[in-house]
């Protein structure tokens, strides 16, 4: 797992770690996508009320904020960015790995499985 200092991420962006970027590239390659972006969003639902959305997409929507991180274009809907500013997206592999993991400074609490949070 890549350990990034949460406080090192400016609040006007989000950070994708190298391991997360590698995994996203792997998924995109498996799906045969040469040009793609990673849509990161937040929607209602989950135990704590807000769920993360991760999706490999072809292009950004008009209202998306676009960020380049470790060779990945990240598309974030502006309405969702308020909940994601300063977040680190990491990936940990292996038997004890958690898969994709959000370290979100806006999350006041997180549910047990880590897929939802309260802001």
């Amino acid at each position, binding site marked *: 797992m890549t350990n990034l200092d949460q406080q090192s991420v400016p609040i006007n962006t989000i950070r994708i770690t190298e391991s997360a970027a590698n995994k996203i590239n792997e998924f995109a390659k498996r799906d045969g996508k040469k040009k793609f972006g990673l849509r990161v*969003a*937040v*929607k*209602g*639902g*989950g*135990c*704590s*009320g*807000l*769920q993360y*959305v991760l999706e490999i997409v072809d292009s950004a929507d008009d209202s998306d904020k676009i960020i380049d991180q470790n060779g990945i274009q990240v598309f974030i*809907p502006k*309405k*969702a960015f308020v*909940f994601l500013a300063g977040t680190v997206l990491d990936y940990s592999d292996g038997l004890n790995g958690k898969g994709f993991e959000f370290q979100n400074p806006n999350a006041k*609490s997180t*549910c*047990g*499985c880590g*897929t*939802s949070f*309260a802001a």
Partner: protein
Amino acid sequence: MKKNAYYYLRSNSSIIKHSGADSLDLLNRLTTNELSNLNQLNPIRTLLTNNKGRIVDSFLILMRNDNDLYLLSDSNDLSIVINEIEKYTIIEDSMLSDISKNISRIILYGKDIKSSLQKELNLVNENYNICDINGYQITVIKDISKKVDWYEIILDKKNISDFLETLNSFDFIISTEKNFSSYCVKNMIPSYHREFGLHTNPIEAGLINLVNFEKGCYVGQEVIARLLNYKKTKRSLVLLKSNNHVMIGDKINHNSLTVGEITSVDNDDNNALALVKILYSKKGTKLKINDLDVIVTKSSE
């Protein structure tokens, strides 16, 4: 002989219109029941709980068309429900509006209500029908979540006088708020603000049938699952019988210990609903309200 078929006109119809392509998906992610089977012929009741597992509202969802849902709420203050859903609406195509002032809502109940409605309105479907009456339409919905035959009718408010006359012509009996409340007490049907609300979770309020434990996450799911699996619920809804009148708010005692409180009363038959500590909620438990003996005749536990 009069039919055992009653109608109760709600003073506030409490209906929310929920529009948008993501409205159903959003409600499925936020509320306790599985809504993927919802369709026009199959309305579903569900609970909106908060992240502490407490009940914000109970509503029956009707699908009017692909993009419009009607939420028939139990609450009289729809702003709380609307605000709670809007709090979790981020990127979804979803819009909520209170349409109560344009629509009337009638609850029908009683032993003969099913057969009487079928005869008078020629109902074709089991749970959802649109019927033509004197040149206007009414929607008849069966709420299968209730343990008794329970129907709701919604119609344009401008036709309500005519429709009430029609119900009278069917020999249905008008129900006052007191009659309606007594019926709910006898049948252990919890009412909003009394037996359930932000002071209760679905398990203690006897509404566990509205929680689907296989659907996955919704707001409050972790708390509710923990309460159930570790048997952490502290109270239970009970039906009490006494030999005299009791009042809402009366404290229920066991020896000198207060173990619960009366939440609704049916003083015609000296029945009452109460939220009582689990240990004292078993059927047959003898309790006291001041000097009056009361006995638990039914428990939701």
